[in-house]
C-alpha cells in the first residue's frame, strides 16, 4: 500500500461507521448474537488463564477482535449446513453448539476431549453438528468443503458448505484450486476470507498485490463481497445473502471480511511487529463494544440486560472450567488406537 506511513489505513473500503448495518433480525436474536460474541471472548479469556497456569499443553490461539466475523457468519447458517471452521473461528463453533468444556479439554489434552487427547485446540469436528475439523495446512479445507457441498448436491440435501481462510491462506494453491473447482461444479459453497492484516508477522501487502481479496472472485466467475468484519450485523446479512444464493443453486460466493487480529499469531507471540497505532485504531472498532453501543443506543437492550448476559456466561464458565480440569489425561495405550476405521 503506497501511503506516507509504513502502515496506513488498513481497510479504507470499509471505513468503520458507528452505525451498524441494517438488519431484519429482531431484538431477541440480536441479543443472541451478542451472547455468542461475548461467550467467545470470555471462553478465550478463561483459556488464557489456563494457559498462564500451565494447563494448556500446546499453543493457544485467539480470535480477539474477530468475533463478529465468526459469529455473524455461522449465525446465517441453517441446521443442515456444514461448516469448516479454522483456528480463529471459535465463535462459529460455539454458534454450532460446541460447549466451552470441549474446547478447554482439547487445549488441555484431556481424556474426555472430543479427540480423546489425540489432537488439540479447535481441531475437532462432528458431522452431527455440521462441523468438519480443519488441518493446519492452510487452504486445504477449501476443496474439502467444496466436496461437502458437492455431496450435499448429489444427495439432494439442500445444504450449504461454508469455510474460512485468512489473508495469508489465500496465497496457497488449494485456495485457487478449491474455489475454482467449486465454481465450475457450481456447488453451494461460501468462502469467507478474513483479512485481519497479518499472517503471523507478514503483512497482507506481502501476500498479494490486490487491495481487496474479494476482487479475486472475478477470476472464478463468482460474486465477491466486501464486508466490515467488525460489524456482526453486516457479516450476518452478507453471509445470509450468499447462503441463500448458494442454496437456490446460484453457486459459490467469496466474502472478504475486513477485520483485525488484536493479538499475536498465538499466545507466545507478542506481535511486536504490529505498529501500536494499528492496535489503537482497531481498539476503537472493537466489534463487541460497537455492538453494545448499537443495542443500547437503539433501545434493543438495557445495560442490565447486557450485564445479565455476562453474569450468566461467567457462572457457566466456572462450571465448564471445573469440568474440564477434572477430566484425567488419556491412557497411554490410546496412542496406538484408531489409525484405521
Amino acid at each position: 500500500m503506497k501511503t506516507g506511513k509504513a502502515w496506513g489505513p488498513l481497510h479504507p473500503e470499509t471505513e468503520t461507521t458507528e452505525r451498524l448495518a441494517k438488519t431484519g433480525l429482531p431484538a431477541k436474536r440480536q441479543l443472541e448474537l451478542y451472547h455468542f460474541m461475548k461467550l467467545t471472548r470470555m471462553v478465550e479469556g478463561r483459556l488464557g488463564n489456563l494457559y498462564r497456569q500451565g494447563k494448556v499443553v500446546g499453543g493457544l490461539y485467539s480470535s480477539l477482535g474477530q468475533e463478529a466475523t465468526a459469529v455473524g457468519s455461522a449465525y446465517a447458517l441453517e441446521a443442515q449446513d456444514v461448516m469448516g471452521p479454522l483456528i480463529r473461528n471459535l465463535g462459529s463453533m460455539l454458534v454450532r453448539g460446541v460447549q466451552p468444556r470441549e474446547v478447554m479439554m482439547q487445549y488441555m489434552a484431556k481424556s474426555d476431549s472430543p479427540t480423546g487427547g489425540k489432537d488439540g485446540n479447535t481441531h475437532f469436528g462432528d458431522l452431527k453438528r455440521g462441523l468438519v475439523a480443519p488441518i493446519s495446512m492452510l487452504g486445504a479445507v477449501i476443496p474439502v468443503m467444496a466436496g461437502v457441498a458437492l455431496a450435499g448436491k448429489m444427495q439432494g440435501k439442500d445444504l450449504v458448505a461454508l469455510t474460512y481462510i485468512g489473508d495469508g491462506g489465500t496465497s496457497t494453491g488449494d485456495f485457487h484450486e478449491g474455489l475454482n473447482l467449486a465454481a465450475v461444479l457450481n456447488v453451494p459453497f461460501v468462502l469467507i476470507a478474513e483479512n485481519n492484516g497479518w499472517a503471523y508477522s507478514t503483512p497482507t501487502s506481502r501476500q498479494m498485490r490486490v487491495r481487496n481479496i474479494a476482487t479475486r472472485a472475478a477470476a472464478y466467475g463468482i460474486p465477491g463481497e466486501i464486508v466490515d468484519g467488525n460489524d456482526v450485523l453486516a457479516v450476518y446479512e452478507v453471509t445470509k445473502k450468499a447462503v441463500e444464493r448458494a442454496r437456490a443453486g446460484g453457486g459459490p460466493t467469496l466474502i472478504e471480511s475486513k477485520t483485525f487480529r488484536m493479538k499475536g499469531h498465538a499466545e507466545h507471540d507478542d506481535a511486536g511487529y504490529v505498529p501500536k497505532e494499528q492496535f489503537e485504531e482497531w481498539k476503537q472498532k472493537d466489534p463487541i463494544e460497537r455492538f453494545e453501543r448499537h443495542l443500547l443506543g437503539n433501545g434493543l437492550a438495557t445495560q442490565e440486560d447486557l450485564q445479565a448476559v455476562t453474569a450468566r456466561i461467567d457462572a457457566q464458565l466456572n462450571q465448564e472450567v471445573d469440568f474440564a480440569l477434572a477430566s484425567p489425561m488419556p491412557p497411554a495405550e490410546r496412542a496406538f488406537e484408531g489409525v484405521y476405521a
Partner: protein
Amino acid sequence: MATVTYLEAIRQALWDEMEQDPRVFMLGQDIGTYGGAFRVTAGFLDHFGPGRIVDTPISESAMIGAAIGAAMMGMLPVVEMQFIDFISCAFNQIINFAAPNHYRWGQQVPIVVRGPSGGNVHGSAYHSQNPESYFHHTPGLKIVAPGTVADAYGLLRSAIQDPNPVLYFEHKYLYRRLKDELPSGDGLVPIGQARLAREGRDLSVITYGAMLQVALEAAGRLEAEGIDLEVLDLRTIKPLDQEAILATVRKTSRVIVLTEEQTTGSVAGEVAARISQDAFEWLDGPVHRLCCPDTPVPYSPTLEEAYLPNVDKLAAKVRELASY
C-alpha cells in the same frame, strides 16, 4: 468363460460397484466424454450420467480434497489420477487430511485414489513412476497394487468398500498385456492378504504389481536349471501381510524382494527390514532388494531397460543367492 484384460477388469469393478451402490461416484480429468486417458471409464458417462461421472479441472489437490469432503458426507468417491505420477500434486490432501482423519477425530474417509503407475512403456520421468513408498510411510492409508486380472478386479471392489482411504496403484504395462478370466461371484479380494503365486523350495521372491510376471517368468526359466522359486505376491503393500512374508522366509531361507521402485526408502526396504528383524535365525543369506537404481525414470528404451528389473537380472541374482 471369456477372458478379459487387466484394464477391463478394472473397468468392470468400477462398473459393478457403481451399479451396486449409489454412493459410489468418480472424479477425474477427461473421464467423461473422453472415457479417460486409457479408456478405463469408456461408456460410463452415458450410463451413469454427469452427476456421478464428474469431469474436473486440472486440480489434483482439489479433486482429492473434494473426494475427502464427499466421503465424510457418506459418499464413496473414486478419484482417477490420469497418471499416478500426478498424485504428488495432492500429497498434502492425502497424507495430512485423509490419512490421519480417523485417528484425529474419528471421522472415516472412504476414498479410493487410483491411476496408472509403472514403467516399461517409455513414458519417461513423469508418466512412469511408482510412488508407493511416499505413502507407505503414512499411518491411516491402505495401498494395494494388483498383479493379476482377478486381483485388479477384486482389490478394486474391496478398496471401494473399505472405510479407509485406499490408494490403488494399477500397472499400465499390464493394462492390455495381461488377460485372464474374471472370478465368479463378487470376486472380492481381502485387503491385507498376500497370495502365494508359486510354491517352491529353494528361494523366495517377494513382489507385487508388474514385477509378479517377471518373477513367474524367471521361475519357469530357473526350474530348468534345478532352482525351485517360491513367489509371494504381496497384493496389498500397506498394511503388509507380515505372516505370509515370514512364512515364506521360514520355508526357503533365502529371499529377494523384487519391486519396481527406486531402491532407497522403498517398500522393498521395509520388507527386508522386517525379515531381518523377525526371521533373522531362519536366513541362509542376505536379504536382497532387487529394485530400480536411485535415478529418475529414463526415457530411451536402452536406458529404461537398464533401469528396470527384468527376468535376466532376477535370474542372475537368484543364481548368486542360491549358491551363497
